[in-house]
């Protein structure tokens, strides 16, 4: 995988950058994004108590006031879950064709798509961390299968690259506004 800033020509079309995705990478990430959507849909049916990963994706907004926490959940949960499913769906939609293809391909990301990617990838890291038993800073995880650890680190690299892409575009916008 390789993340590059958009060329001047692409930028004129509203493209922020491109991600070069290998077939195998597309398969893994698309599968994870599909699983994330299913997991989030479960949260609406069963709540977040039964799965620690859902507790990380959808934490309570009030720590010491169960009544306010409950009220806030009722008001915000559905919308939040729908938006998070949307982030994951943006990943699946872009990656499914590459996963089914025989060669690597470039995915061009607009700002809106990059925002979905950076948050969808972040949500995947939250879930994987919970599955690995990562609880405190610097934790290597109790149940870390080597493969899962690699995916977790790979997603960290991808998220960091996307942050840099978005940051550069924010900086460019701020500079333009200051002029």
């Amino acid at each position, binding site marked *: 995988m390789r993340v590059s800033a958009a060329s001047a020509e692409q930028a004129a079309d509203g493209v922020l950058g491109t991600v070069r995705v290998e077939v195998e990478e597309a398969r893994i990430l698309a599968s994870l994004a599909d699983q994330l959507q299913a997991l989030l849909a479960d949260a609406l049916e069963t709540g977040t108590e039964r799965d620690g990963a859902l507790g*990380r*994706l*959808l*934490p*309570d*907004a*009030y*720590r*010491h006031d169960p009544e*306010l926490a409950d*009220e*806030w959940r*009722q*008001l*915000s949960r559905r*919308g*939040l879950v729908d*938006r*998070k499913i949307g982030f994951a769906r943006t990943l699946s939609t872009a990656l499914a064709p590459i996963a089914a293809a025989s060669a690597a391909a470039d995915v061009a990301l607009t700002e809106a798509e990059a925002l979905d990617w*950076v*948050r969808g990838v*972040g*949500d995947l*890291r*939250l879930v994987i*961390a919970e599955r690995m038993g*990562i*609880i*405190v*800073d*610097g*934790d290597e995880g109790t149940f870390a299968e080597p493969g899962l650890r690699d995916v977790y680190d790979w997603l*960290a690299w991808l*998220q*960091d690259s996307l*942050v*840099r892409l*978005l*940051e550069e575009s*924010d900086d460019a916008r701020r500079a333009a506004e200051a002029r």
Partner: protein
Amino acid sequence: MRSLVAPVAPVAVVSPGAPRGEARRDTGEQTGGLLLEQPLHAADVPWQVVVWNDPVNLMSYVAWVFRRHFGLDAGTAEQRMMQVHTDGRAVLADGNREVMERHAEAMHEYGLWATVERVPR
């Protein structure tokens, strides 16, 4: 569903002066206290949004979220992120409860762990 006027301790300025009936004949100075007697509206009660440390989110990501969502400059965003990292939490905004809830929801959208709490008196 949401009560706009939360049951909070009213902050009232009460004049120790004469009872209402007599106040009419009093000078403005004495009735002034009564006119100020207003329960504090829930919208004025300060709340804050707190972001908590977690072992998953990247430091670069958290600082970027603070910049992007709260409009902080790079240095302040970095400083708040380090505060989350070292102290375990940082206050990112304060104001009325509804606005703080919107911030918390946005933080959850970014995968950050945020809560709303009353500003300690």
